[in-house]
């Protein structure tokens, strides 16, 4: 006695599509203890979540608390899952989706090296001025600029510098903080 099965449309694992993937910035407050960063990063790799950028530093020396800011992306359901999974880690004190839950300021800092002479050099200086980038180091053939801003601004800055002799970039990844008096 066999029931015939209709062909499956599913592939494994099947995550019901809950709309389009979008970016999320998560702030994770953790106890600063050995291995904590690898717990967080390991969770992302083990469960196949995406990390676009990650920054971490101790922010409360007395309580040994660090703040990790992670830029990730996924459907709404996936982001909720990431937050819940992070919440299960013992050293994690708080997880907040600053993009969603609060009006947040975000900033990133980049150090940018340009190797250029002649017209390109002049043009690079002009672009830097528009973006309020600060020259930190100057030689006859190179500049290093420091620029801060939202990620889009930094991307735009880099796009403009690329044809002008951009040779190296170092970026911090996104930092964020809630506007107003409230804290995370």
């Amino acid at each position, binding site marked *: *006695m*066999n*029931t*015939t*099965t*209709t*062909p*499956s*449309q*599913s*592939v*494994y*694992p*099947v*995550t*019901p599509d*809950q709309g389009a993937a979008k970016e999320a910035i998560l702030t994770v407050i953790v*106890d600063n203890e*050995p*291995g904590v960063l*690898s*717990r967080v990063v*390991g969770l992302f790799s*083990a469960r196949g979540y995406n990390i676009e950028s990650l920054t971490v530093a101790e922010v409360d020396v007395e309580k040994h608390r660090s703040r990790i800011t992670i830029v990730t992306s996924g459907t709404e*359901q996936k982001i*909720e*899952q990431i937050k*819940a*999974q992070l*919440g*299960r*880690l*013992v*050293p994690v004190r708080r997880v907040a989706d600053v993009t969603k839950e609060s009006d947040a300021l975000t900033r990133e800092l980049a150090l940018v090296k340009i190797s250029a002479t002649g017209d390109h050099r002049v043009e690079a200086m002009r672009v830097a001025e528009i973006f309020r980038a600060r020259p930190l180091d100057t030689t006859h053939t190179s500049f290093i600029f420091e620029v801060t801003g939202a990620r889009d601004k930094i991307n735009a800055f880099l796009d403009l510098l690329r044809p002008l002799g951009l040779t190296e970039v170092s970026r911090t990844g996104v930092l964020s903080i809630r506007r107003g008096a409230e804290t995370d």
Partner: protein
Amino acid sequence: MTTALKTSGMNEAVSTAPSTAQKSGAELVLDALEEQGVDVIFGYPGGAVLPIYDALHHRSSIQHILMRHEQGAVHAAEGYARSTGKVGVALVTSGPGATNAVTGLADALLDSIPIICISGQVARPFIGTDAFQECDTTGITRSCTKHNYLAQSAKSLSGIIHEAFHIARRGRPGPVLVDIPKDVQFEEAAYTPRAEAKNRNCIVVPDIKNNDIEHAVELMRHARRPVFYTGGGVINAGASAQLRALARQTGFPLTSTLMGLGSFPASDPQWLGMLGMHGSLEANNAMHDCDLMICVGARFDDRVTGRLDAFSPNSRKIHIDIDPSSVNKNVPVDLAIIGDAGEVMDAMLAEWRRRETQEKHDKVRIAEWLMQIDGWRARKSFQFEPADDRIKPQHAVQRLYELTRGKDVYITTEVGQHQMWAAQYFHFDEPNRWMTSGGLGTMGYGLPAALGVQVAHPDALVIDIAGDASVQMTMQEMSAAVQYGLPIKIFIINNAYLGMVRQWQELLHGRRYSHSYSDSLPDFVKLADAYGGHGIRAEKPHELDAKIEEMLASKKPVLFDCVVTNEENVFPMIPSGAAHNEMLMGGAVTGDEISDEGKVLV
């Protein structure tokens, strides 16, 4: 002063010792275990844990069971934990000791079993130098424990162990590993009592919201086709009584996952049997056709849901779980209630009763549903064709069940077809009686787990329903069973195949039985003899009962070689990639039942 205190304070109750008394790290470990109520450790010694073993030597309050492999030690601790509701403890050495424990830890993580694994580590100055028997234990076990520690000093040691127990028990239970460098075991420090240890919470459980309870009961009172879908979480929460009360009060039918068996009595007419890939027709059809699903302590695992896009398409779903990450992970639900299953069900029951006094629940509302379920039940999906000349595996489990009824019995299993037959044909009326590796599916779990159960319940009948292949993965623990006089019964359903693999090859791979035949099986009767146990073989149906009686009468560990038909399949079956209402029933299978998409699933 230090040494004087050490010797005189040795046998004193820990809590009364002045907290300034200095003790070695090894003694501190045992003090902390003692204060946590540990009376038995399953372990295996080695260089990096010798100081702890030395301290154990004169500590009569803690029994140590010497296992034959660290995997066995962890599974034994799991069996102990699962059957008692307490935390199980394993002790292993560094390097290979720790890596051998990994399978057990991963198993405990997936099945939410509270255990503590203490591992030795090379001395602090050697860490990172590729020293002898060094491995990055905390790194290796990070993703297969709920939490782990590298104890950096003796001062922090007892506090860490208390926190480890707290984490293992609290919220959704799980394994916690504490890695202790050898020099920390020698270093002296003061003891931190349990009451003074910091207890960070792994899961912060919010208060149960009245609104949610009212909403849930509202949905329940209006349901016409309700079903309870329960899991191992009910057992972990010790909430069987609440589940029973709620089920009786509402009259709703109830099914459970593999892990939840026993939380509701199998003899009850409301019981639908297990659900999922090899669950009963009535359970799976009820899940598919219900209009209200009340999930308690289960996690919508792929073995349970089948094809997700066809999973219970027309139901509202309530999910009660202690772990927020379980909610909406695989299946979106309409109402999530985060909390302890017992507390939530108590609240639901109170609300249900309150509503009853206002207006009686109209039982007629679900009468038609119950009749429909009876119709499915009448199809007897666990039926099989008996044979005269050879023992059918289902029949073997059935007889084992009948002949042990009314006894104080605990069942463990290995992994494979026999595990499914055990779940289908052995019935449980009480929780904590059924120990099986559900999440990880670890062959070799059952024998050492049985040993752990027997240690916890010395007078009970503990049976491992085993497969001929699985049992060889941890067979050496027979030696430990004999050493400690633990009369576990290993009931081997011997089909001479890696049966579950063979079944999948039959259904998915054109009967090409690639490397799934167990050639050169040992003579299990002689093997039992060699270990100093009791070997029994049954080959014919007519001798089965008498042989089982012989096993039950034996005071020794038994290897029972139950020789069964070789190519039996587990039915009914939801093929991978199919929906709940597309079950294959027993009988001839052509091999075309599983779609190509289904084949890529596991």
